[in-house]
C-alpha cells in the first residue's frame, strides 16, 4: 500500500481518533492505523470519560454514543484495614444535560468513536502494527507497517501509540520510562444486576457513582483504587507506581483481590460475576517526564506524550484535546504547505497554554512528592481513621479526654511538627 496521505495517525485511542476525526472533517486525507482487531481492543481505562473535551469534537455525542451512566456522585474513601473515612459530592446538576462525565466501556466506546472518524472520511486500518517511522534527512515522511509492502507515506505522522510509545522513543523524543514514572493498573469488570447496583450505590435509574479508594486499598503504596458503576456491571481496579510493586514485591492481581475482599468494598460487589480482567500502564511521570512532542513531520499526542493528570484521574480528556489541537495545527500546516518542526510547534504552544499544559504544570511535583514521602498513605490515613473511631465511639469518656488522647497518640511535639510540615508540603505541591 505504497500510498501518500496528508496525515497518518498511529493508534486509534481517544487521542488518535480525535485527531483523525478533526483532520478528516477539515478536508485532509487521513489514514488511521490500529494494531488491534478493532479500536478499543487494546485499550484500558478506569472508565470515566469527561463530557466537555469529547463535546469539543462531537457536540451532543451523549445522545448517541454507547455510554454507561452519567456520574452524579463522586466519593473518596480514605481506608484503613477495617475502616474508612468517606467524603463525596453528589449533585443533581450532573444528572442533567450537559452532564459532567460518564462511565464508559472502552472497547464499545472507541469503536463507536472510530466509526465517527470514518464517517468524516478517515480511512481506518485495523490489525496493523507500525514498526518504525520512515525518516529522510531528519524528517518523518511515513511509516513502515508489518503488512507486506507496508510502507505508507504522509506529510505528517501523528504518534498516538499510547504509553508504550516505542515510536516516539525510537525517534529519540524521550528516554525509556523508569518504574516510578508509570503506574500499573489492573481491573475487572464485574457483572451485576442493574437494580442491585442502583440500590447499593443509592442511585436512581441511569445515574452513576464513582468511588476513589486511598490508603489501605493499595496497602499504603502510592496509588489508588477505584470502583465505578456501569449500566449492569461494575469496574473495580487498583493502580500503583510500578516501582511500588517492585519495592514491596506485591503481585498486582493479588492487590486487586485484596481490594475486592476489603470489608469496606466487599458489600458493594457481593454476588457479582467477573466478566473481564485487564491490565495496563498509565504514564504518571507528569510534566517532568514529557519528552519532545514535535519534530519535522511528526507530532506526539495523548498517553504517548505522558498527558495524564494522575491527581484528578484525568487522561482521556487530555488525550482528546491534544488530538484536536494537533489536527488544528496540521490543517494550518497543510494550508501553508509547511510541515517543519518550526511550523508544527504551534501545537506545543497551544497545548501548553491551554488547560492541558496548565494542569500538567500545576501538579508537576505532586506524584514525585508523595512517592518520596510515603507516610501520607501508610501512616496518616490510618491515623485519621483511628482518630475518627476514638471520637465517635461513645464509651463514657468525655470528648475532651478523647481529644487529649488522640493528640497524645500522634506522638511527641517533634512528630507533631513533622506532620504539620508534611501537611504544608502537600498543600504546596497541590496548590
Amino acid at each position, binding site marked *: 500500500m505504497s500510498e501518500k496521505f496528508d496525515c497518518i495517525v498511529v493508534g486509534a485511542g481517544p487521542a488518535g481518533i480525535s485527531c483523525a476525526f478533526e483532520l478528516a472533517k477539515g478536508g485532509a486525507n487521513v489514514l488511521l492505523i490500529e494494531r488491534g482487531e478493532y479500536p478499543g481492543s487494546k485499550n484500558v481505562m478506569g472508565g470515566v470519560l469527561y463530557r466537555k473535551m469529547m463535546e469539543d469534537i462531537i457536540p451532543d455525542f451523549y445522545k448517541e454514543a454507547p455510554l454507561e451512566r452519567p456520574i452524579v456522585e463522586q466519593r473518596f474513601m480514605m481506608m484503613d484495614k477495617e475502616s474508612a473515612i468517606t467524603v463525596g459530592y453528589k449533585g443533581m446538576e450532573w444528572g442533567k444535560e450537559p452532564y459532567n462525565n460518564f462511565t464508559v466501556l*472502552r*472497547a464499545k466506546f472507541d469503536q463507536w468513536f472510530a466509526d465517527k472518524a470514518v464517517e468524516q472520511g478517515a480511512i481506518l486500518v485495523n490489525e496493523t502494527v507500525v514498526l518504525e517511522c520512515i525518516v529522510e534527512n531528519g524528517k518523518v515522511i511515513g511509516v513502515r507497517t508489518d503488512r507486506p509492502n507496508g510502507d505508507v507515506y504522509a506529510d505528517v505522522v501523528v504518534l498516538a501509540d499510547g504509553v508504550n510509545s516505542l515510536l516516539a522513543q525510537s525517534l529519540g523524543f524521550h528516554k525509556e520510562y*523508569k518504574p516510578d514514572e508509570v503506574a*500499573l493498573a489492573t481491573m475487572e469488570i464485574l457483572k451485576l444486576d442493574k437494580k442491585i447496583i442502583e440500590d447499593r450505590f443509592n442511585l436512581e435509574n441511569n445515574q452513576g457513582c464513582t468511588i476513589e479508594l486511598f490508603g489501605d486499598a493499595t496497602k499504603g503504596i502510592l496509588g489508588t483504587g477505584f470502583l465505578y458503576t456501569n449500566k449492569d456491571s461494575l469496574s473495580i481496579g487498583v493502580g500503583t507506581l510500578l516501582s511500588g510493586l517492585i519495592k514491596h514485591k506485591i503481585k498486582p492481581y493479588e492487590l486487586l483481590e485484596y481490594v475486592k475482599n476489603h470489608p469496606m468494598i466487599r458489600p458493594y460487589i457481593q454476588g457479582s460475576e467477573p466478566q473481564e480482567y*485487564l491490565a495496563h500502564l498509565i504514564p504518571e511521570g507528569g510534566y517532568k517526564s514529557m519528552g519532545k512532542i514535535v519534530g519535522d513531520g511528526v507530532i506526539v499526542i495523548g498517553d504517548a506524550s505522558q498527558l495524564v493528570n494522575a491527581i484528578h484521574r484525568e487522561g482521556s480528556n487530555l488525550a482528546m484535546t491534544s488530538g484536536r489541537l494537533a489536527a488544528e495545527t496540521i490543517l494550518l500546516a497543510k494550508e501553508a504547505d509547511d510541515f517543519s518542526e518550526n511550523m508544527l510547534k504551534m501545537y506545543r504552544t497551544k497545548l501548553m497554554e491551554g488547560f492541558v499544559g496548565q494542569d500538567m504544570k500545576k501538579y508537576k511535583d505532586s506524584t514525585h512528592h508523595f512517592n518520596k514521602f510515603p507516610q501520607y498513605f501508610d501512616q496518616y490515613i490510618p491515623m485519621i481513621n483511628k482518630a475518627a473511631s476514638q471520637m465517635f465511639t461513645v464509651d463514657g469518656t468525655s470528648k475532651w479526654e478523647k481529644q487529649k488522647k488522640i493528640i497524645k497518640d500522634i506522638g511527641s511535639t517533634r512528630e507533631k511538627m513533622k506532620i504539620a510540615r508534611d501537611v504544608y508540603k502537600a498543600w504546596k505541591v497541590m496548590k
Partner: protein
Amino acid sequence: MSEQNKGQSIEEKQYLVRFNADTKSHLHVKDTDICMTKCPDKICTIFCPAEIYKWEDIRMHIGYEGCHECGSCRIGCPHQNIKWEYPKGGHGIVFRLG
C-alpha cells in the same frame, strides 16, 4: 474463611480474557545468563499482571500467549533484559469490554 474470601487466582482471571495468540513470541529474554546469575529477585515473575514470567530451574519461561501488552516487564526489568515488541497486527490480547 468463606468461599469468596479465597479470592480468584490469576489463572481464573486469565480465563476471562480473549487472546488471539501468534505462533511466535513477541517477548524475549536478551541474555538468559543475566536472569540466572545477576537477578536473584526475578521480580518480573512477581509484578507481571498476567504472571507470564515463570522461572523454571535454570531458565525463564515466557507464556507470551497470555500477555496483556502492558509494557511493565520492559520498564520494570532491573537489567533491561527484555526485548519487548508489539505482537503482530491483530494478534495478542483482545479486550471485549475495557
